[in-house]
């Protein structure tokens, strides 16, 4: 796909359930010089998304598609090159994060927390687990006194299945990968965020532990009223956790829609490729849909028009000349393709 456009966004005036609205997000990184010209990696190019209160939005794609860069740009790590990231659009508490810096940005950060792929390297090895989980509260003094803070930390630790007594004395290396991911979840949830951004949270875990963490995230969402943005390359995992799914390719959005609709009636050729390439292909696509070239174009010099056209079986001249924009193909189902399957 290669799609831009904002047709798939909800109008905040008509819908008050949008908790996060991302408009025309662009993230570029310098990539040195070639032939005297400055080069730029187009990691994310004009991506617009909205996230509704209480839902899980899955973002799926292969490495280099910009899914993690998008996630990081949402929490301003680092801030995007351009675009808007609006928390609570249309509400009194509305904040546009990209324009903020310094203490104003720090003040908003607790509202959006993140968990990372590698649970062990994302925890400070030299501190006790209880200190790690409690540090955010200590900084923000969200609870009025130390006793309350401690009670909150213990409550959240118990909720994720870690014994607070044990956490008081032990450090991350004394826990397994799955337990460290539980600790990361506790560290994020203890701040009482509105949105939890999960960047490949189960990719580093053994399959027998993966289900524990996925179930835990569902429980946490329920218990603390969270909204989740869930990034993964694993289509089965994304389907399991998501209410809506966004498919990305080479810095662009291909298709966004209700999870079941998107998996049962994939409209974008790239979505079909992904579904047909899974070890156990989805029954809704033909196995031959996976037969495309291996070479992903460089994000330094992405193809004109639709960025997927160089590998797309349906590409025509129009795809090179004109970038497809998001359009509706079903109830809550949008695709950016000139020739979608509908």
């Amino acid at each position, binding site marked *: 796909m290669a799609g831009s456009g904002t047709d798939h966004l909800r109008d905040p005036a008509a819908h008050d359930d949008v908790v996060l609205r991302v408009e025309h997000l662009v993230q570029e990184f310098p990539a040195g010089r070639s032939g005297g010209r400055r080069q730029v990696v187009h990691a994310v190019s004009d991506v617009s998304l909205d996230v509704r209160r209480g839902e899980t939005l899955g973002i799926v794609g*292969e*490495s280099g598609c910009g899914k993690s860069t998008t996630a990081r740009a949402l929490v301003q790590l680092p801030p995007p090159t351009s675009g808007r990231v609006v928390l609570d659009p249309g509400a009194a508490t509305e904040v546009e994060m990209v324009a903020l810096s310094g203490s104003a940005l720090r003040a908003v950060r607790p509202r959006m927390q993140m968990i990372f792929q590698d649970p062990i390297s994302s925890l400070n090895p030299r501190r006790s687990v209880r200190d790690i989980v409690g540090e955010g509260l200590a900084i923000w003094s969200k609870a009025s006194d130390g006793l309350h803070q401690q009670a909150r930390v213990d409550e959240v630790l118990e909720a994720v299945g870690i014994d607070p007594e044990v956490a008081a004395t032990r450090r991350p290396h004394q826990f*397994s*990968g*799955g*337990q460290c991911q539980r600790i990361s979840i506790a560290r994020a949830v203890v701040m009482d965020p509105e949105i939890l951004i999960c960047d490949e949270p189960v990719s580093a875990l*053994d*399959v*027998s*532990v*993966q*289900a*524990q963490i*996925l*179930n835990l995230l*569902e429980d946490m969402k329920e218990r603390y009223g969270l909204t989740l943005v869930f990034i993964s*390359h694993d*289509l*089965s*995992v994304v*389907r*399991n*956790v*998501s*209410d809506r799914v966004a498919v990305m390719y080479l810095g662009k959005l291909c298709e966004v829609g209700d*999870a*079941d609709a998107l*998996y049962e009636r994939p409209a974008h050729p790239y979505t079909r*490729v*992904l*579904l*047909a*390439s*899974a*070890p*156990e*292909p*989805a*029954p*809704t696509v033909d196995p031959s849909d*996976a037969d*495309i070239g*291996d*070479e*992903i174009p460089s994000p330094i010099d992405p193809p004109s028009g639709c960025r997927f056209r160089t590998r797309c079986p349906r590409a025509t001249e129009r795809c090179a000349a004109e970038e497809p924009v998001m359009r509706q193909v079903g109830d809550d189902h949008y695709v950016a393709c000139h020739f979608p399957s509908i």
Partner: protein
Amino acid sequence: MSTASAAGPLLSVQDLGVTFGTADGPVRAVDGVSFDLTEGRTLGIVGESGSGKSVTAKALMNLLPSYAEVEGSITFGGRDLRALAAARERHFWGVELTMVFQDPMTSLNPVKRIGEQIAECLRVHLGRSRKVATAEALDLLERVGIPEPRKRLRQYPHELSGGLRQRVVIAMALACGPRLLIADEPTTALDVTVQKHILDLLDDLRRERAMSMILITHDLGVVKGRADDVMVMYGGRTMESAETPTLFGRMHHPYTRALLETIPRIDAPAHTRLVPIPGRPPSPAEVGRSCPFAARCRHRIDDCLDGVPPLVPVPVGAAGAEGAEDASHHSACIVSVGSDGRGDS
């Protein structure tokens, strides 16, 4: 299939054990693993981290460090591999028996051109001249589906994508015409769209060259359509082994079943509650005197903690005709095999 030729299996592993001496005492990574591989077949070895699947592969490839203590016997094409290793017969590995690793970047030399690296195997092992070896390297690159092979010969690994690098590694593994190729998580580091192509390529090559293959993976889905036989490992031991359709059709061991049930399905509706396996995989240091899965097993009885259950043939249930037991289907579980009826099915 009972196509086992009169000559016997190509590879026969009997009672393989691998123990690493560490500062904290001996760690038993592989314990009593036995299997046969018939010429031309693919064996899938499925397991999580710490299951001993990669250590088994390294034992076959003679790649274990010197502090590893190996027991048991490994026979390949009638030859005793451990005796060959002791005699430092290096030319055996890389020729008849080769391996493809998980990460194609670290299996290639970053400062050597692709062409030289492939030609090197041919020159060292088969004594080809530089010119002949380069010509053969070109053919190999073509065969593994690398576009513009002539240009690639002169490129360095960093100039290639992950998928192309893995194709180069496969070309190197094929260079000397192996009888057995061991692929250890060959696609885990690759994107899904590339993963399928690499697995398809390995399958095509195996057929075309009548090679045997051992496909090691943590993903039951990967072996489902591609392996003839499957062996499921956990905590250094074999939990269950069978021909692939039998394994998926009549899964016997609680671990195999739990592993399949715990994985989210691509065709199940959103928010389907997953069936987790409690706890975590055992570390090799914990391998003890009981069933390795007992601590996490729903069907555990007291007897599970008393001794390591042996791998025994699984009786064909009532559904099977009067054929006694399926000679290819083995499981190491005393609960569902138990004749006392306590097993739950």
